C-alpha cells in the first residue's frame, strides 16, 4: 500500500546518465528529507557511484551540498591531489580528449564537409604534383596523404580504445569508501560482501561483461569478494569515453584459489541502465517495502534522425530506451523519470550550475514523491477513512442498526495496465488477503462500474459472470473476503486532471432488501461521489 507510514523502507535504483547523474544527488536529498530508509541501493554507471556512496553511508549533502558547495570531490582531493574538480575523474589528459570529442561530435556536419574538402584537395594535389613532374611536390602530396591517414587511424584507435582512464578515480574511490566504512583499518579493501549487513543497505551494481558477453550483476551474494571500487569502475566505463575496465576474478574451491581469470567490462548501461530488477527477491520477502527507480530520460533536444545521423541516436536509445523493461521484472515499483538540460558530457559545468541542478533535482523528485507516494496518497487514505466513517454512520440508521465491518479502497490501474484495477489506500483490509489485490475489469463488479462509468450496488451472492469467473481467477477467488455481504462501487472521473478511479466500499452486515436500505446507499453514493469529485477537481 502506498502510504507514508509504510514507506519507510525502500529499495532505490539509480540509472546511468553521465553528467545528468547530478540529478540523483537531488533525488537522494528529497528521499532523505522524507525519511526514506534505504534497504538496498542499486545503480548503473553514474547511478552506481551515487548508489555506492549512499550504501557506504554518505548523505546527499556529503556528495554535493547545494547550500555550502562542499562535495565528495573535496574528499577525493584529500586522497588524490590530482582530483580538484569533476573533470579530473577522467585522468590525466582525459578531459582534454573528451572536450575535443564533445566539440567534434557537436560540429560533425561541418567537420564532414571539411574532411571531404581536404580529401579532394589532397587528391587534386597528388594529380597536380604528378603532372608537374616535381619530386618535391609529389613527396609533399604523398606526405600530406600519409599524415591524414595517420590522423584518421589514431582518432579511430583512440575512440575504440577509450579516451579516458578510470584508474585514478577508481583508486581514490576505494580509499574514500575504506575511510568511511573502516577508518581504523587502512589496508582494508571494501568489497561487495560488506553491504547488506551491519546496518548497511545491500548494494547492487550492473556492468557489461565483454569477456562472457553478458550482463554482470555485482552484489553481496554473487560477487562477494569483488572490491566495490572495481564494480563501480566497471559500471561507468562507457565505450569510447573510458577504456574498458579489467577485473581479475577468482575461482575458489575448498577455500583456495583454483584459477584466476581477467574479465573485461564496459558501462552497464548498455545492458541494463535502470537496475530495479535485482531487488526481486528482497521485494518478494518484504512486499510492503517500495522500489523507487530514479531514471534519467534523454528525450530533450533529440535531433531529426535520418539515414546518415542515426548512430548517436541509436547509442542513446540503447542506454536510455529500455528503462521500462528493466523495471518490469520487479513487480510493483514506482519509476521517476527525469530529464535534464545537461548533456551526458557536461562535467565542466560551474559549481553554481551544479548546485542549482541538485536543487532542481530535489524539487522535481519532491513533486513526484508527493504526488505518487506521500501527500496525495495520504489524502486518498484520509478520504477512505472519512468514507468508512460516513458509511458506518449512515448504515447505523438501518433497522438492525449494526453497520458491521466496513472496508473502503480506491481502485486505480497500475502504470500501463489496461485490464485490471489495483485496490489502493485501503482502510479496514488489514486482516484480509485481498489488500492490494489486482481486480480484473472483466468479470467483477468493480470492473463493471469502472467500464460503464456507473455506480453499482450488489449483495452476495453474485451472478457467475461478476464473481471472478474462469481459471485465471482461481487464486484470486481464494483471496476475496469470504464474509462480504454487500458492496458499492463508485466511479470517479476528472478528465482535466487525468484522474480516473473507483471507490469500492464493502461490508459484512446482512441488510434487509427494502427501501430504507436502498435510500441509505443512495445517500452514501451521492455523498461519496460529491466528496471525491470535489477533491479530485482541486487536485487538477
Amino acid at each position, binding site marked *: 500500500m502506498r502510504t507514508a507510514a509504510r514507506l519507510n523502507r525502500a529499495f532505490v535504483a539509480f540509472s546511468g546518465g553521465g553528467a545528468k547523474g547530478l540529478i540523483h544527488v537531488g533525488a537522494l536529498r528529497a528521499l532523505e528529507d522524507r525519511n526514506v530508509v534505504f534497504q538496498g541501493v542499486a545503480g548503473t554507471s553514474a547511478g552506481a557511484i551515487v548508489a555506492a556512496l549512499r550504501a557506504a553511508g554518505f548523505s546527499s549533502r556529503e556528495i554535493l551540498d547545494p547550500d555550502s558547495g562542499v562535495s565528495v570531490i573535496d574528499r577525493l582531493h584529500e586522497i588524490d591531489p590530482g582530483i580538484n574538480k569533476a573533470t579530473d575523474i577522467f585522468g590525466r589528459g582525459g578531459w582534454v580528449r573528451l572536450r575535443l570529442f564533445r566539440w567534434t561530435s557537436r560540429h560533425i556536419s561541418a567537420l564532414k564537409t571539411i574532411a571531404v574538402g581536404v580529401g579532394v584537395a589532397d587528391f587534386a594535389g597528388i594529380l597536380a604534383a604528378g603532372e608537374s613532374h616535381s619530386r618535391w611536390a609529389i613527396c609533399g602530396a604523398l606526405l600530406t596523404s600519409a599524415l591524414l591517414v595517420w590522423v584518421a587511424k589514431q582518432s579511430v584507435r583512440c575512440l575504440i580504445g577509450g579516451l579516458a582512464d578510470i584508474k585514478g578515480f577508481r583508486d581514490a574511490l576505494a580509499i574514500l569508501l575504506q575511510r568511511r566504512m573502516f577508518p581504523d583499518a587502512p589496508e582494508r579493501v571494501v568489497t561487495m560482501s560488506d553491504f547488506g549487513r551491519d546496518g548497511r543497505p545491500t548494494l547492487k551494481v550492473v556492468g557489461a561483461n565483454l569477456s562472457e558477453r553478458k550482463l554482470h550483476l555485482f552484489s553481496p551474494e554473487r560477487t562477494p569478494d569483488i572490491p566495490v571500487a572495481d564494480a563501480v569502475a566497471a559500471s561507468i566505463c562507457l565505450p569510447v569515453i573510458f577504456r574498458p575496465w579489467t577485473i581479475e576474478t577468482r575461482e575458489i574451491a575448498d577455500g583456495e584459489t583454483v584459477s584466476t581469470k581477467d574479465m573485461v567490462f564496459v558501462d552497464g548501461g548498455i545492458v541494463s541502465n535502470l537496475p530495479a530488477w535485482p531487488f526481486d527477491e528482497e521485494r518478494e520477502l518484504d512486499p510492503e517495502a517500495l522500489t523507487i527507480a530514479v531514471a534519467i530520460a534523454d528525450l530533450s533536444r533529440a535531433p531529426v534522425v535520418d539515414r546518415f545521423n542515426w548512430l548517436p541516436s541509436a547509442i542513446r536509445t540503447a542506454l536510455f530506451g529500455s528503462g521500462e523493461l528493466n523495471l518490469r521484472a520487479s513487480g510493483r515499483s514506482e519509476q521517476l*523519470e527525469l530529464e535534464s538540460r545537461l548533456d551526458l558530457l557536461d562535467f565542466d559545468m560551474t559549481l553554481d550550475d551544479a548546485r542549482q541542478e541538485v536543487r532542481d533535482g530535489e524539487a522535481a523528485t519532491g513533486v513526484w514523491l508527493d504526488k505518487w507516494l506521500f501527500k496525495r496518497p495520504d489524502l486518498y487514505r484520509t478520504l477512505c477513512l472519512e468514507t468508512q466513517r460516513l458509511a458506518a*454512520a449512515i448504515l447505523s440508521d438501518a433497522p438492525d442498526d449494526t453497520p458491521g465491518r466496513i472496508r473502503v479502497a480506491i481502485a486505480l490501474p497500475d502504470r500501463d495496465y489496461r485490464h485490471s484495477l489495483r485496490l489502493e489506500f485501503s482502510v479496514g483490509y488489514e486482516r484480509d488477503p485481498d489488500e492490494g489485490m489486482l481486480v480484473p475489469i472483466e468479470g467483477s463488479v468493480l470492473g463493471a462500474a469502472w467500464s460503464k462509468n456507473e455506480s453499482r450496488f450488489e449483495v452476495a451472492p453474485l451472478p457467475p459472470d461478476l464473481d471472478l469467473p474462469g481459471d485465471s481467477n482461481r487464486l484470486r477467488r481464494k483471496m476475496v473476503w469470504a464474509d462480504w455481504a454487500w458492496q458499492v462501487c463508485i466511479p470517479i472521473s476528472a478528465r482535466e486532471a487525468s484522474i480516473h478511479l473507483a471507490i469500492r466500499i464493502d461490508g459484512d452486515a446482512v441488510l434487509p432488501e427494502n427501501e430504507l436500505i436502498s435510500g441509505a446507499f*443512495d445517500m452514501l453514493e451521492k455523498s461519496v461521489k460529491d466528496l471525491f469529485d470535489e477533491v479530485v477537481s482541486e487536485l*487538477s
Partner: protein
Amino acid sequence: MALKSVTFKGSLTPKDVEPNDRIQRVLAKHQSARSDLVREARQITAERRRALESIRDPDLRRSAAR
C-alpha cells in the same frame, strides 16, 4: 437513484424522504470533514505548483510536471 444492481431485490427507485435528525447530524459532520479534505487538496496543489515554479531547469520542470 444513480446506483445500478443485478442482485438487490428491493426497490432502487429513489424517494424524496426528508432525512431524520440523526442522519442530518451525520451529514453535517461529514460536510465539515469534506471541507477540511478539500482544503487539504487545494493546499497540496498549491505546494506542487510552487515547487514546480522553483525548478529552473526547463527540462526537469517539464518532466516533474508529468
